[in-house]
């Protein structure tokens, strides 16, 4: 069986949904004839035509606004942000219009807004951001961050079928680096369910996105020292799998919260609060956070290398916690 890359998995998921459901369409900058800046929508224009694969002006707010309008009319739009960084331009439409329609007047807005986030490719301050927390703080939205090809396909399908607005942050570092054999059946990955990527007994590392691989790399190294990490991939941040988080912490009694996003207001803070509130008596050590520092994402390789959390950080903190 052929291996499917992460980027191909997203494409396949969209493709299959478009074949099955004519309400599904794609709009965004350069998604048509060019196939998208990262080629996620490659071949779709030829297959589905220009009214289902729509090249738009450089207008992120209008792209999301138009997606909302079409969704209110019963369509299932998938809006591409060329880089997840640019989603800030659509912040208002997402947080004020899309997120609040159902609550205010009972109108569902089943849109998917997707785009490449994350660093590691020297994209600099405007092509490397992890903007998930602006949206995690908005009731009415859902936010997912797939880390595997299996999840990339299963979560995009779940997002497209979801009756509410879903923001789908793919990680551009993973596009071509991650591949696996995918099942041929029409599966979905349910939004809000975490996955254990490596079961372990000593310390839980709770993470998402590209940092899953950083955690796994650290776990492999620590194995040699007899420290057994459990690596949990949240997959969805809003809603997140509270039960799975608490279950893992109750089992290992020590926890590292790891993300590529910056520290203050990062998801680790929310997880730390939930663990402290609901599993305090199970903890045998301090809750530890490993995150990017509170700076923009820098461009030059030594700066970016410094910025991104690394396996060595996880190893260092895990050793400290193990000795605690």
């Amino acid at each position: 069986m052929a291996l499917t890359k992460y980027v191909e998995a997203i494409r396949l998921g969209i493709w299959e949904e478009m074949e099955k459901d004519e309400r599904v369409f794609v709009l965004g900058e350069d998604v048509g004839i060019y196939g998208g800046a990262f080629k996620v929508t490659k071949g779709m224009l030829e297959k589905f035509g220009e009214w289902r694969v729509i090249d738009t002006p450089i207008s992120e707010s209008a792209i999301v606004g138009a997606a909302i309008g079409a969704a209110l009319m019963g369509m299932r739009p998938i809006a591409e942000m060329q880089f997840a960084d640019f989603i800030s331009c659509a912040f208002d439409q997402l947080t004020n219009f899309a997120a609040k329609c159902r609550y205010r007047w009972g109108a569902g807005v089943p849109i998917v807004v997707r785009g490449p986030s994350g660093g590691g490719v020297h994209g600099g301050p405007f092509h490397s951001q992890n903007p998930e927390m602006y949206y995690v703080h908005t009731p009415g939205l859902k936010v997912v961050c797939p880390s595997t090809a299996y999840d990339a396909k299963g979560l995009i399908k779940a997002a497209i079928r979801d009756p509410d607005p879903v923001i789908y942050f793919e990680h551009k570092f993973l596009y071509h680096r991650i591949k696996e054999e995918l099942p041929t059946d029409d599966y979905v990955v349910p939004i809000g369910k975490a996955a254990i990527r490596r079961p372990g007994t000593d310390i839980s590392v709770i993470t998402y996105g590209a940092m899953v691989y950083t955690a796994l790399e650290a776990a492999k190294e620590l194995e040699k020292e007899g420290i057994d990490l459990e690596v949990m991939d949240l997959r969805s941040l809003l809603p997140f799998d509270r039960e799975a988080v608490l279950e893992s912490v109750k089992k290992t009694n020590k926890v590292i919260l790891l993300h590529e996003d910056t520290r203050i207001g990062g998801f680790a803070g929310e997880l730390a609060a939930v663990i402290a509130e609901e599993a305090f008596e199970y903890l045998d050590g301090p809750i530890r956070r490993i995150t990017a520092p509170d700076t923009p994402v820098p461009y030059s390789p030594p700066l970016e290398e410094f910025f991104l959390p690394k396996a060595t950080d996880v190893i260092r903190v895990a050793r400290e916690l193990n000795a605690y």
Partner: protein
Amino acid sequence: MKTLNPKAAAPGTARQDALPSEKTLVDMLYYMQLTRELEFRIERKLYRQGKIVGGVYVGRGQEAIAVGSCIDLRQSDVVCPSHRDMGAFLIRGMSVRTILAQYMARKTGATRGRDGNMHMGDMKYNLIAFVSMLGDNVPVAAGIGMSFKMRGEDRVSVCFFGDGATSRGDWHEGINLAAVMKVPVVYVCNNNQYAYSTPLERQMAVENVADRAEAYGLPGVIVDGNDVVAVWNTVRTAIERARSGQGPTLVECKTFRMTGHSAHDDAGYVPAELFQFWEERDPIRRHERLLIDRGLITPAGATELKERVNDEINEAIQIAEKDPFPDPEDCLKDVYFEG
């Protein structure tokens, strides 16, 4: 009325003397009167009696715009009103009681107490709820039009906003997208000359909102917003243009806000002579005169119509005042689909 984009088709220019049916002419008076009286009760009576929760924004003096634009729409067409377009809600079929309950924050209001005042929507009437971020409905209407085009449906959307909204980026992005995609949408501007306290010349360096259309390649048409028949004519032509696949039109209705921005604003910054000038051009009195001149209504009939409107509102107020507030726990419901 003038068309500012010489390259584009000129909707409305040849239709100035066309009149709607007699029934429509009379309905126009009814809906304008109902709008005026309902907003008068809300702003000048119920608000001052402390029965309205939160802010009140009315469209006194602007009634002809929503009424003239919406009166001939089909039920399948979609309306995106803004905050001074009460007539749109009434014409689409939202009941006076539902509207009053909305302003009184009751469970029976259009948003069941989740949101206030003009922030009403209901897919049953193809009415899209407005948000306070002005101009946000402009790209949304473009998307509505795109869905009609994708599905080959013979439907249009009419999207309202004020002059102030045309300063926002969403307005420009949305109008541009609509023009590029040639969507069946009519964009209707209530140019009431003031954005809260800021006069037009502090909003834009062009003379007319319609001047903006040329930059986006769609027709920009100016119409007397206090003449309901002229609004009807212009919007009707723009709707026909949209239905025939020629794309969106920007219709600028020149009018005046005969109140402050909201019920708590005395509009002390507006020169008195402006109010005087526009009072003489009151859209309801003008239309009433037209109907009397054409023998479509008698002076006694006009009084009767007002009484009918009063009775309808009195009855609705009595019901809405007894309507329940939402249960506090309703706060937690419907953030997401609940099956």
